[in-house]
């Protein structure tokens, strides 16, 4: 994967980014860094490497080499997906709120095992599309077929049955704050399955292990960090073994490290449970890691579709500008985060 070695002001970087892939994570994201930031990063490479290892040991199980996103595995996966059946088929979807027409003509097909990332500016209807798929919002017109059934035509009972096959991960995690983590995970199983207490306990432990949070089983949601809440939200969704996963801004508000963790978690879930996913995000780090295909939503329609690299080279002005804006934003976030981490590490040393 070729990286652009020039920064925005046209100066040439001293070293290619690939030389420090483990420390920065930029080889996965394709994001650029400023010269100053890069030298800062190089100075603290060892410290960060040590720290990352510590973090991974405590919060995230090691990602097996074969599960990491790579061009080869990605193309193999894409070839398999091309043969798959269509699980979500949206045709001419329209939705207005009052006089504001949010979705004008949405058409989208998702194949079994495929992960689609939806990019677009705020308020363009990305989350509304997800909510139409799961039946939380009724469309004004158009078809939303999920596993062959048109969602708006279903009765409440039929919709409930269909929802057991769809997992929805909310932006905030949406954990039930009066229940502990264990109760949060048990809740959908107790209400939708006939599993015994032992079987439920086993499943709860298994999914918590999958998301690397076995130690949080008896905590209350208020005791968890933002990233942990999102992972528990993921665990609560995958515990029902859904066929389709809908992710509503899974990495918003998280630092780059946790963003990468969550993004790899999405890839792992996709590989392990063979689910099809739609990921709504602004985050290019996440998009780059998880997407088989990216669609860009603008003015109530999907204007562009392709792989990350294809869209990066897009001639469409909106797509190009959007990519540049969000990449700049992600780079700033990364720089700020690493600056904060450097300060923290300096403070720790002083202490």
């Amino acid at each position: 994967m070729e990286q652009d070695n020039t920064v925005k002001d046209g100066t040439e970087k001293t070293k290619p980014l690939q030389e420090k892939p483990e420390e920065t994570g930029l080889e996965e994201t394709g994001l650029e860094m400023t010269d100053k930031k890069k030298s800062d990063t190089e100075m603290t490479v060892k410290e960060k490497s040590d720290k990352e290892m510590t973090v991974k040991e405590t919060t995230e199980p090691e990602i097996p080499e074969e599960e990491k996103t790579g061009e080869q595995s990605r193309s193999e996966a894409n070839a398999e997906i091309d043969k798959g059946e269509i699980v979500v088929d949206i045709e001419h979807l329209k939705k207005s709120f009052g006089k504001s027409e949010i979705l004008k003509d949405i058409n989208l097909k998702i194949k079994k095992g495929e992960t689609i990332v939806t990019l677009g500016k705020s308020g363009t209807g990305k989350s509304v599309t997800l909510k139409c798929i799961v039946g939380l919002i009724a469309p004004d017109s158009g078809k939303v077929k999920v596993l062959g059934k048109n969602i708006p035509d279903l009765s409440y009972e039929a919709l409930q049955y269909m929802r057991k096959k769809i997992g929805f991960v909310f932006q905030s995690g949406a954990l039930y704050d009066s229940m502990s983590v264990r109760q949060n995970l048990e809740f959908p199983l107790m209400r939708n399955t006939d599993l015994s207490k032992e079987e439920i306990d086993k499943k709860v432990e298994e999914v918590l292990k999958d998301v690397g949070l076995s130690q949080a089983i008896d905590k209350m949601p208020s005791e968890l960090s933002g990233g942990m809440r999102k992972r528990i939200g993921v665990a609560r969704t995958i515990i029902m073994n859904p066929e389709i996963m809908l992710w509503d801004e899974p990495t918003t508000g998280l630092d780059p490290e946790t963003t990468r963790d969550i993004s790899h978690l999405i890839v792992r879930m996709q590989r392990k449970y063979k689910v099809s996913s739609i990921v709504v995000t602004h985050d290019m780090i996440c998009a780059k890691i998880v997407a088989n295909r990216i669609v860009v939503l603008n003015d109530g329609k999907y204007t562009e579709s392709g792989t990350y690299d294809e869209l990066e080279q897009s001639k469409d002005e909106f797509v190009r500008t959007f990519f540049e804006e969000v990449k700049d934003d992600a780079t700033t976030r990364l720089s700020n985060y690493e600056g904060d981490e450097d300060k923290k590490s300096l403070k720790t040393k002083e202490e």
Partner: protein
Amino acid sequence: MLKSILPKSVQNVFIETWGIYNFSARFFKEVFKPPYNLNEMIKQFFQIGNKSLGLVGITGFIIGFVLALQAIPTLQPFGATSLIPSMVGLGIILEIGPVITGLICAGKIGSSIGAELGSMKVTEQIDAMEVSASNPFNFLVITRVVATTLMIPLLIIYADVIALLGGFLAMNIVSDVSLGLYFSQVFDALDIGSLIGPVVKTFFFGFTIGIVGCYKGYNADKGTESVGIAANTSVVISSLMVIIWDMIAVQITNIIL
């Protein structure tokens, strides 16, 4: 047509009434359907009943005490102090006890349910239950409305008893009356038939407080401001409904008896 004639505030009243009616209809449709969420129901009985005992008890005591104390100087010149226990009993059990306790419960329980469900709505917890096929209406609404419908009558009976004790204390301060004599005079004034109306209306109070609190919380808009609005409007609507139910109950009782 009607929409263009009626002012927005009147339209909103009709919209809210229609919404509460539909919400209540859904409650009756789903109340006997499994799952029955017994653990959650017991939790709500405790939250609504046990945790309101102090407030309801203090209020009831003060009402009974003040009512008797106010009546003494009025009736004493006529030599009618012996009628005070009957008057306090009738006033407390038929009217003041249920209505004041109903209003106190509308404030405490109605706002608490409205705020709790409103905050769950705003933080997408209700949507999360919905998309996991867990039927949040069954889990959140049925349990709370059943708990308020059954617990508020009990709270009202409890408040009535405390209020009568308060009345006795006031009487005992100014005159030498025994507890036995006091209560025998209270119950002499009441017959079983006259108790039916006040008891039945307390179930309506309980149901209304629960259903309005749940309706406002469950249908809260997005944003933290909505939580406050849900809590506030729950109290306003359920308090008003308590008064309206009371008026209807009195009319019906007068017609029947």
